[in-house]
C-alpha cells in the first residue's frame, strides 16, 4: 500500500494527482456522489420488499413497476411532456441563441439577462409564480381532460428549458466563421438558402445537444411540475414522490433506474454532439 501511495521520485509542484489528500478528496467525492445511486440501482434487483437487506437477484420489480397503472400513466405523461416541451424549446431556444449571437440592438444586455432569468431564478419561486398564473387564467381549475391537461406543465417546462438551448446554440455559433455566410451570399445564395444550407448545418450539433438537455431537464423536473400539475396530470417524478411517502418499495427503485438510464443516455449523446469537431471552422 505504502509503495503505491508514496512514489520514490519527488513530487513536482503541479503534480496534484500524486498528492494523498487530493486522492482522498477525490475518493470521498465519488463515494458520496455515486454510492446512493449505485445502491438504488442494486436494490432494484433485490427480492426483498425492503431496501435494507440484500436477499437475492430478481427482475420482478421491473414487472411490478410496469404493471402499476398509476406509475405507467405518470411515465407516459412525463414522456409526452418532455417530447412536446423539447420540440418547442429547441425551436424557441435556437432562435433566441441565433438572435443573441447575430444581432446588436438597443437593450440587448437587459434582454439577454431576461432570457437567462429562468436559469437563475429559484425553481420554487418559478413554480409558485406559474401556478398562480395558470390558476388566474383558469388552466388549472377547468377540467379539460387528458391530454390537454398536460398543457400547463408543457408550457412551464418550455419556459425553463429554452434558455438552456439558447445558451448551447449561442456558444456553438461563436465558433462560426462569418465569412462562410458571406461566401454563400457571394456564390449566389439568397438569405433563406444561406440559412438553410450553411447556418443550420453548422447549428445542428448545438440544436441536438440543446434538445437533449431540454429533454432531460423536463423528464426529471419535480418542483415546477409539482406546482403546475393537477390530479389528472401527474408526472413520473411527482408520482414517485407521492409513493415514497408510503415507504420506498423496490418497484420504485426499478422505475427510477429506468429514468436514470434514459437520462444518462441522453446526456452522453448531448456531450458527444457538443464536443468540438475538427470541422468547426471553414
Amino acid at each position, binding site marked *: 500500500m505504502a509503495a503505491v501511495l508514496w512514489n520514490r521520485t519527488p513530487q513536482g509542484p503541479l503534480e496534484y494527482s500524486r498528492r494523498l489528500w487530493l486522492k482522498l478528496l477525490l475518493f470521498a467525492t465519488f463515494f458520496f456522489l455515486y454510492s446512493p445511486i449505485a445502491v438504488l440501482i442494486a436494490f432494484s434487483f433485490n427480492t426483498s420488499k425492503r431496501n435494507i437487506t440484500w436477499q437475492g437477484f430478481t427482475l420482478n420489480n421491473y414487472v411490478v413497476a410496469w404493471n402499476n397503472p398509476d406509475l405507467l400513466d405518470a411515465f407516459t405523461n412525463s414522456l409526452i411532456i418532455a417530447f412536446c416541451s423539447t420540440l418547442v424549446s429547441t425551436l424557441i431556444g435556437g432562435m433566441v441563441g441565433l438572435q443573441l449571437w447575430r444581432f446588436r440592438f438597443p437593450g440587448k444586455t437587459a434582454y439577454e439577462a431576461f432570457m437567462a432569468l429562468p436559469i437563475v431564478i429559484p425553481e420554487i419561486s418559478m413554480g409558485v409564480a406559474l401556478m398562480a398564473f395558470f390558476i388566474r387564467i383558469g388552466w388549472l381549475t377547468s377540467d379539460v381532460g387528458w391530454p390537454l391537461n398536460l398543457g400547463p406543465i408543457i408550457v412551464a417546462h418550455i419556459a425553463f428549458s429554452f434558455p438552456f438551448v439558447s445558451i448551447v446554440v449561442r456558444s456553438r455559433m461563436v465558433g462560426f*466563421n462569418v*465569412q*462562410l455566410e*458571406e*461566401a*454563400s*451570399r*457571394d*456564390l*449566389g*445564395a*439568397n438569405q433563406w*438558402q444561406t440559412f438553410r*444550407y*450553411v447556418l443550420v*448545418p*453548422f447549428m445542428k450539433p448545438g440544436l441536438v445537444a440543446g434538445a437533449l438537455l431540454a429533454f432531460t431537464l423536463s423528464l426529471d423536473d419535480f418542483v415546477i411540475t409539482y406546482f403546475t400539475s393537477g390530479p389528472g396530470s401527474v408526472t413520473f417524478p411527482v408520482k414517485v414522490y407521492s409513493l415514497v411517502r408510503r415507504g420506498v418499495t423496490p418497484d420504485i427503485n426499478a422505475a427510477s433506474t429506468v429514468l436514470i438510464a434514459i437520462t444518462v443516455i441522453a446526456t452522453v449523446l448531448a456531450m458527444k454532439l457538443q464536443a468540438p*469537431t*475538427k*470541422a*468547426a*471552422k*471553414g
Partner: protein
Amino acid sequence: MSEPIVSIRNVSKKFPGGVVAVDQVSFDIGQNEFFALLGPSGCGKTTLLRMISGLEPMSGGQILIGGEDMANTPPNKRPTNMVFQSYAVFPHMTVEQNVAYGLKVTGVAADETKRRVAEALDMVKLTELAARKPDQMSGGQRQRVALARALVKRPKVLLLDEPLSALDAKLREDMRLELTRLQETVGITFIIVTHDQDEALSMASRIAVMEKGAVQQIATPAELYEHPVNRFVADFIGKVNLIDARVTSQSATAVHCEAKGLGRIDLPANKPCGATVCIATRPEKLKITRQEPQEPGLVKVQGLVRDVAYYGDTSHVVVEAADGLNLAINMQNDSRGGGAGVARGQKVWVHWLPAESIILTE
C-alpha cells in the same frame, strides 16, 4: 487600356464612429487585368474589395461592373466572386459539394453542374480529392477548393482577399505562379488584395498602392518601383534611401540642392520643385569603391561601413556618412571571390549616377 470592366467612381466608406476607410477613390480596371490593391493593413484595400463584391455597402460613390451600376445589386446577383482570406470552405460539405454550391443555389441544371464542377476541379487539380471533406485537407488544397468554387460561377471579375497570407513560404511561391497561370487560362479579371509588395510586384499587371483610404499611385510594377510619385510609395515598395534636401535653385533640366550628408548636388529634374525635396535612391543603384571615383558627374560620398549582411546572392551593406546619413547598398555577389569585398569599419566611397535618383516633392 482596354474597355474597363470595373469602374470605381468617388467611392467612399465611412464606418459608424467616424472612421473613413475609403475616401473618394476613383479608378478603372480593364478587361483581363491582374490588378492588385496593395497597402499596409488598415489602408482600406479590403474594404474596397468588399464593396466591389457588394458584401460591404458603400457610403458614397458608384461602382460599375461591365458598364452596369451595381448600386442596387446585392452580392448574390453580382458578376463577381470572391476567394476569402480564410478560404471560407463549407466544412460540412465535400469538395465536390462546395464547388457545386454556387450552381445549385442558382438553379443550374444537374448535368451542367456536374460537367462544370468536374471542369473546375480539373483546373485546380483536385479531381482526386472530390469526395474529401475540408478538414481532411491542407491549407493549400482548401484554397484550391475556394478558387474552384468561385471560378465555376464564371464571374466577370474574381476577387481575391489576401489569398496567400495563410500559406507557408514555399507554397506561397507555387501559388503565385499558379494564380498567374490560372488568370491567363480563364482570361477573366483578377483583383487581388495584398499587403505583400513582392506578391503584388510579381503577379499583378497593374498595382494600386493605397494608404489611409486613398489611392497613392496606380501603375505597372516596374513603374511603381522606378518612378514612385511620393515618399510613401517609394518607401512602401521595396527598399529605398530617402535623403532630405533643400533646393537652392532650379533650371529647366536640373535642380541644385543642398542634401543632408551629401552637400551640394545637382540632379536632373523636369518638373518644378518646392523649397524642400526628398531624394530617393534604390540600394541596388548605389556602388561602393575603396578609392574616390574619378568620373565626373557622380553623386559621391565617403563613409564608414557600419554593417554587412550576407544573403548569398546579394550582400546588404550599410554605410554611415557625414551628418548621420545612413545609406543602404545592395551588392550583387557576382563572383565567387569572397562576398561583398567590404568589411565592417572600412572607409569607402559610395557613388551613383544622378539619373538613378528620384526627386520626390511630396
